[in-house]
């Protein structure tokens, strides 16, 4: 008999491996889509309603926009963040540590790079979709629809990919799920301060405005806002580039950390 009937050498990042992992995610999603959709859409919508109508009654215009429109577009970015970084952290940790799902997948012809890529892709797709929920609510409450808004799911996808990869990195690095609190409190929550979601960063100290340039959430907010109110070519090229850099960097770091965790 001969050895090795696979004549074609298998390469990195092959579509069949990505498709296998994505198929698994999709089929699993059918069992929990209600709860995932509920938390990913209702929470930002509540933020939108609370800030929009709460502060909206006190502040009529921000940066030239009605406050409910301003905060509506900011909440899209929040929805993208929530629906990508949290699944990236919690779902990855559970699948790795408790369900041992990744051990099963890696026993098949799938490597860690493909596993992480497919997981981040799936979360990013969901983030792109879920990000539209507060946008629709904002439209219902007075935000004028514009054709450029068709770019918002893509913006959510790109941003969500980076945040999903960041979440996977956290899951691969932390020893206990309890330690996630540190990341949520010390990293995720402060991002809101310098992102321009609920208030413009122009009112912040200059150093904080510079810091915002390093905040992927800020670039997401800017792109979403410009999609809703009109693109600024130069600024938005930079915003898009920043998100792409974040996505690629977070993706490679997630693969590195996950490989260290999964391959002994």
């Amino acid at each position, binding site marked *: 008999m001969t050895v*090795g009937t696979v004549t074609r*050498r298998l390469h990195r990042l092959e579509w069949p*491996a990505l*498709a296998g992992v994505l198929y*698994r995610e999709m089929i699993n999603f059918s069992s929990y889509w209600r709860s995932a959709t509920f938390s990913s859409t209702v929470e930002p919508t509540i933020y939108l309603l609370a800030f929009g109508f709460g502060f909206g009654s006190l502040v009529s215009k921000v940066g030239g926009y009605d406050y409910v429109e301003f905060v509506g577009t900011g909440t899209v970015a929040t929805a993208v963040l929530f629906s990508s970084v949290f699944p990236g952290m919690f779902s990855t940790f559970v699948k790795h540590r408790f369900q041992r799902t990744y051990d*099963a997948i890696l*026993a*098949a*012809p799938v490597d860690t790079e493909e596993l992480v890529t497919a997981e981040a892709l799936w979360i990013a797709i969901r983030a792109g979709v879920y990000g539209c929920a507060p946008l629709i609510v904002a439209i219902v409450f007075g935000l004028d629809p514009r054709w450029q808004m068709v770019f918002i799911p893509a913006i959510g996808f790109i941003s969500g990919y980076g945040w999903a990869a960041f979440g996977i990195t956290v899951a691969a690095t932390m020893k206990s799920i309890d330690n996630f609190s540190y990341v949520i409190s010390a990293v995720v929550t402060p991002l809101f301060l310098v992102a321009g979601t609920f208030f413009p960063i122009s009112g912040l100290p200059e150093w904080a405005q510079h810091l915002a340039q390093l905040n992927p959430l800020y670039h997401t907010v800017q792109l979403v806002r410009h999609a809703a109110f009109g693109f600024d070519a130069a600024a938005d090229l930079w915003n898009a580039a920043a998100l792409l850099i974040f996505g690629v960097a977070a993706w490679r770091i997630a693969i590195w950390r996950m490989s260290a965790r999964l391959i*002994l």
Partner: protein
Amino acid sequence: MARQADIALRMRGVTKRFGPITAVDGLDLEVPAGTCVGLLGPNGAGKSTTMKMLTAQAIADEGELEVLGFRLPGESKQARAECGVVPQLDNLDTTLTVEQNLRVFAWLYRLGRHERTPAVERALEIANLGARRDTRVDELSGGMRRRLLIARALVHRPRLVLLDEPTVGLDPQVRQELWALIDSLRTEGVSILMSTHYIEEAERLADTVTIMSEGKAVVTGRPTDLVAAHAGREVLEVYGPPARLAEVEQTAVSGGLRTRRTGTSVAVVGIEGANGFDLDGARRPANLEDVFVLLTGEDIE
């Protein structure tokens, strides 16, 4: 030694360390194609680490590994495409049905669109889970989940199956069912590497057994040959209080026989060749457990 082309799996001088602990220490192992090789050893012997290295989920610090002709870890993906893995710990998707679990792995093993459904049907039939195809995994019994794990590993018709403690924690009846299933694979010509700490499992299923202890292969051979070579034909089992057992041990050792303690008794090995011994006890055929304890000094189930 078998020819290169007839070897499903080969390890040469493989060592794996975790910090100061050497989990696998210079392991040599071969699985000739179409045979079942048993890795027998107690918990902590290095069996699971060996299994992980064969799927490149652990990378050897030293040595050479070859699976189905593919060098590891560089070509592990190709090797994994033709291997099936049954893990020690259940890692099924519990919220999915039996059929969905199999279908996911039909995708992961890259079966073509038209191959998936027949492959899932075949796996369901092998594991006798056709009637449970729409049952969620978290509603299955432990034995059914184990059968599903085996079916999942077979969905792509692998040439080599790695079974890591396939019947651990199962009741005797379910264990017998799984043995029949594993035996049928061997009959079909599938190469099998099975780690176990159950003596009976190794004796029943394995063509060749490698006994592992503290990360090393202590001995390799056919179970009957190992028993004949290391424990003879018969063993005298003597029961009694500790003082009596100590006395028996002393008598046996002074007569050039080897003994081992088995809880409340002393087993005197190779008693058929001993003349002039006048010890009361029960004679029984020597078995692989005697070999294991004599060679490693460790107890096993």
